[in-house]
């Protein structure tokens, strides 16, 4: 398994070109092209701002003000995570040609999914930062930002390895995942603040790794105090273990892919 893991490094050029291809192909043929990567999060922000300012104004309590911006700090990393997981549930099947017809390292596929969604996440950041600056919310905790991205990257990769391999054998996974992600969304502090939740419920939320990742983002980018750091320290080994377990599972099933997809 570790030998296979090391060969991943050899595929970096392949991974890089496939991510490039993914990004190029996504907006190919649309008039605005690559601009959509900026427009999409901008429109998303506008919708949240409209809904939570006019339709159901929230009391921007407990460090959630301005609320639309708070929401946006959570939505961006959440979108990276959920799109990656949902796309990876279909990726091995839709790329069956590669696995069956040419000698192709299958683990590259979920990696490409996660990385190309990471690029979309990054493309949304300038807009987030612009608003953070506008609202005077630039925090010194920003230096921890790369660390939490890496943390989320390993967590997401692990889950995507697991989901993509499982979906090959159980096509049901593709249907389940969509609903599961909806549930997961509400079980993660994106639209609400972790701190406003009753401790009895918080106890359960603590089992959700995305809770800590998202709280991490919100504190690093928005509130500027790192009260959640003990949990984030725990997330370092947790993410790594998720990654390794996910990869192990993928590696064990690897040889069945060519026959099952």
């Amino acid at each position, binding site marked *: 398994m570790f030998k296979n893991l090391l060969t991943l490094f050899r595929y970096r050029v*392949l991974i890089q*070109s496939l991510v490039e*291809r993914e990004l190029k*192909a996504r907006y190919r*043929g649309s008039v605005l092209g690559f601009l959509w990567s900026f427009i999409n999060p901008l429109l998303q922000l506008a919708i949240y701002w409209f809904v939570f300012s006019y339709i159901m104004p929230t009391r921007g309590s407990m460090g959630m003000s301005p609320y639309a911006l708070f929401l946006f700090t959570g939505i961006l990393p959440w979108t990276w995570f959920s799109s990656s997981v949902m796309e990876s549930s279909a990726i091995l099947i839709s790329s069956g040609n590669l696995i069956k017809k*040419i000698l192709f390292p299958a683990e590259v596929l979920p990696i490409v999914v996660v990385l190309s969604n990471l690029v979309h996440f990054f493309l949304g950041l300038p807009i987030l930062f612009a608003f953070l600056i506008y609202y005077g919310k630039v925090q010194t905790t920003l230096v921890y930002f790369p660390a939490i991205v890496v943390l989320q990257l390993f967590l997401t990769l692990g889950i995507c390895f697991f989901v993509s391999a499982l979906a090959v054998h159980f096509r*049901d996974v593709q249907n389940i995942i969509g609903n599961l992600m909806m549930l997961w969304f509400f079980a993660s502090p994106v639209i609400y603040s972790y701190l406003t939740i009753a401790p009895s419920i918080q106890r359960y939320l603590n089992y959700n790794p995305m809770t800590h990742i998202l709280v991490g983002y919100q504190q690093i980018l928005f509130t500027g105090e790192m009260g959640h750091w003990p949990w984030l320290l725990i997330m370092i080994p947790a993410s790594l273990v998720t990654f390794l377990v996910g990869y192990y599972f993928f590696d*064990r*099933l690897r040889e069945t892919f060519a026959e*099952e997809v």
Partner: protein
Amino acid sequence: MGIAIQVSDVTKIYQRYSHRKQFRTLKSALLGGNLLAELRPDERFEALNDITFNVREGTTFAIIGRNGSGKSTLLKCIAGIAKPSAGTVAVKGRISALIELGAGFHPEITGRENIFINGIMLGLTKKEIRDRFDDIVDFAELEEFIDAPVKTYSSGMYMRLGFAVAIHVDPDVLLIDEVLAVGDEAFVHKCLDKIAEFRRRGKTIILVTHSLGLVEKMADEALWIDHSRVQLRGDPKKVVDAYLARVTHHEENALVAEEEKAVTEFESPKSAAEHDERESEIEPTSAFARKKGRWGSREVEVQEVTLHGADGTARHVFTTGDPVTVRLKVKSTGTIHDFVFGVAIFNADGMCCYGTNTHLEQFTPVKFSGEGEVRFVIPNLRLIEGTYFLDVAAHQRDGYPFDYHRALHQFRVQSKIKDVGIYRPAHRWEFSSNIVLKPPKSTS
């Protein structure tokens, strides 16, 4: 010369997970608590059984066999796409597999971008691709379209690009799986030329194909697999002949079965009146509408129709140029003075290739009683490859049918020459001395 590919005791078992019913899949696996255990198969299919062979460096090696015999699985094992369940495959040098052309193309991006990505997938570096880019585009004849998205390509263009990229990987070992079956004549020739160039440069080629002519022309050695096992390996000519003999045997059996079915189906005699009705009903309006049938008064009955080869044995499969005898076993109920025997050959399209009878050839019937045999002797079967149907008949000179068999008997003609038409006249080619051609290799 060293060994380029060594396949030792390779067995490949495909596993079917048929026990998993639709509604107890993920749930039962989760409840069972052991996902990996649940993924164990309970039904097995052996695609390859203990295959062993070597391919010497710089030789062209052909693998032949019927559909489903395991050829492609073997090729996938050599390419490393499938992993043998047992045994080992060792390949020396860079390998490029032409199993499905353009398998990695993305329809939305341009041909240029696809060349780069496909090249990287096949193991080239970016620099290598840049160096070969012009050659690839040139070979694929896609200069004008290289910056158009691949989804706008015709299937021929798509395939040309796929072949061009794969062949420019410049592998030490090239695996080709029937990919030459598609594509227009000109491009196929170009591909064959490229493959010939590979041979000259001392590269190793493994060719999986149904084109036996190609095997005899290009291969240094051939392997025939059937039912997952090696049947024969060695000189291509010898292997192809053995394979053809087996194919003939199978076709023979299939034709016998079909004929038995046809003859028993129309066994019961039909009266002349009934025949008239039938006739008007089934009179072929087009050449394609020939139905099987048997009718007639059976005053003279054609009891058995057999075709015989040079050695006198009854057969259903012949080779162009063979002598063939059609034997009709006939029986009359009394002494008959007005009778005609006829034979006609139709091809699979229902077109009459030839038909004649004793009356047309101006024999005058005198008398026939009891049992007898009629032989229609063809000293040299001048038909092209294909399946043919035989009509035989016994009737009166005015057409009143005794026993008419329409399309109940069939036979197959094989030919290594892929000539076309419905008839093959006896012929030869002659050239003046300033026109020089190499004569074909003797085909038998």
